């Protein structure tokens, strides 16, 4: 199977602290990779390395290589803005941009140069439908995105990422603040989306990974302990730490 991301010996430092140690893994395309691990295990740092969001904060340093379709995304000539158009990200806190629902979704495509009104309208419907919220908001696209509920805002965030037609979707604990019904809707959307996209899902909820991830990676203290098909990680993990974590003995 083709690797979408090929991560080799990734070390990440923050203010001199080593947050990720020698992480090496390949992420296949058109699958959901679940990333689990206790707080402080480097999950978020890892996922933010993949679209170069880490470098926005001062004090960040990395070593190693991250290849996207064989290209080193940290190579000197590689443009972070182009990268982020290909690799979309949904954050833990559902935050709509301070503008209308419609504007939130066409934000990315407009930046990419799409001006055609009909085309934008089509994108809005398409991506809201893919995020399972078209029916909820189709009559009030002009309403401020900030007035939606948390679960709706998070699906709006997903929709606006989809509207850019990225290749990879990164999700950083997208359901951490959501109720079970909103969570179920997002999971349903993700399961449908993996046919087209490579999805990397960081989650604090091991059950969520068990439900929808094809592969699961377990991080602990900045190290990738184990990665494998989700079934195997949850039923027959190789490492004891993984077993302890997924069975809820710690973390």
């Amino acid at each position, binding site marked *: 199977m083709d690797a979408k991301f090929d991560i080799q010996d990734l070390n990440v430092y923050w203010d001199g602290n080593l947050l990720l140690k020698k992480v090496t893994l390949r992420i296949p395309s058109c699958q959901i990779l679940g990333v689990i691990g206790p707080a402080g295990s480097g999950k978020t740092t890892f996922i933010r390395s993949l*679209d170069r*969001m880490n470098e*926005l904060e*001062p004090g960040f340093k990395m070593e190693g290589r991250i290849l996207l379709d064989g290209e080193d995304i940290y190579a000197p000539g590689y443009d972070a*803005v*182009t990268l*982020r*158009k290909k690799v*979309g*990200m949904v*954050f833990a*806190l559902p*935050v*709509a*941009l*301070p*503008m209308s629902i419609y504007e939130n979704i066409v*934000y*990315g495509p407009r*930046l*990419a140069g799409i001006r055609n009104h009909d085309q934008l309208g089509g994108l809005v419907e398409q991506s809201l439908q893919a995020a399972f919220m078209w029916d909820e908001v189709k009559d009030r696209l002009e309403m401020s995105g*900030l007035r939606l509920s948390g679960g709706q805002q998070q699906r709006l*965030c997903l929709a*606006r*990422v989809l509207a*850019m037609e990225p290749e990879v979707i990164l999700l950083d604990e997208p359901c951490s603040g959501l109720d079970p019904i909103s969570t179920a809707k997002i999971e349903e959307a993700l399961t449908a989306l993996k046919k087209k996209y490579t999805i990397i899902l960081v989650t604090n909820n091991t059950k969520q990974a068990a439900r929808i991830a094809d592969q699961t990676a377990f991080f602990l203290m900045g190290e990738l302990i184990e990665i494998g098909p989700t079934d195997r990680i949850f039923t027959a993990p190789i490492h004891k730490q993984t077993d302890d974590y997924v069975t809820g003995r710690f973390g």
Partner: protein
Amino acid sequence: MSLIGEKGVRRILSITAFSAISALLLIALFILTEGLPFIFRYGLHDFLLESDWDPQTGKFGIFPMVAASLWVTFGAMVVGAPLGVAGAIFLSEFVPKSVMRVVKPTIELLAAIPSVVYGFIGVMVLAPLIRTQLGGPGLSLLAASIILGIMILPTVISISIDSIQAVPQSYREGSLALGATTWQTIHMVTVKAAKSGIIASIILGMGRAIGETMAVIMVAGNSVRIPESPLDSVRSLTANIALEMSYATGLHRQALFATGVILFVGIIILNSIAIVALRKRVYKK
């Protein structure tokens, strides 16, 4: 402690707090009782919109001064707002936090320079420069606008920075993660979200400019006329009061108080707009 007691402290503090408010009320009352009767007698329309100001013959039309004050304030805004807002954006979005911690208080120190010093610089440096480079008397509307534009910078910059920094980091990250460049993020998200605070900063700066007296007297030239070009010498409402109060008597004196009423009302309106704008910012989170 036992001498005064909890209740005593409370009473003393409330007296001090109320004395500040009562000072404001007394000033307002004083200006209004001195100025309003004149306005009623002379007629608001004639007072505001007639251009003859000749206290000797009993003509009290302050329109030239109103026009001058508005133009000077507008000019100060044209000079100060772009500089201030651009400076605030630069400082809050492009400069490391450590640098900002030094630069922002330094800019706020601009407000601590006495206005007479600004006026002095205007007279010694700016006015001669305008006279030799652009013509006219030098002491002019343009000189006053530039000096006031600089004087309102600390207000504009410091309130703009506060409201730009109040924009949640998640907005910026959300925008950047959607493939926006830093600059696109700033003008499409950050500045938009901070808009009401930025507008408030400009309005408060305008309030400061319209009320400024000393620097304006020194650099504006003070002739009573409706300005036709930025190089004309003008007299603002504040300058008019300050220049004539020392010898004014009777009706003339009342007319100056009435001028004060006009200024007072104008500044209250500006400040109220700014407060509403700032409050909107808070509600929007």
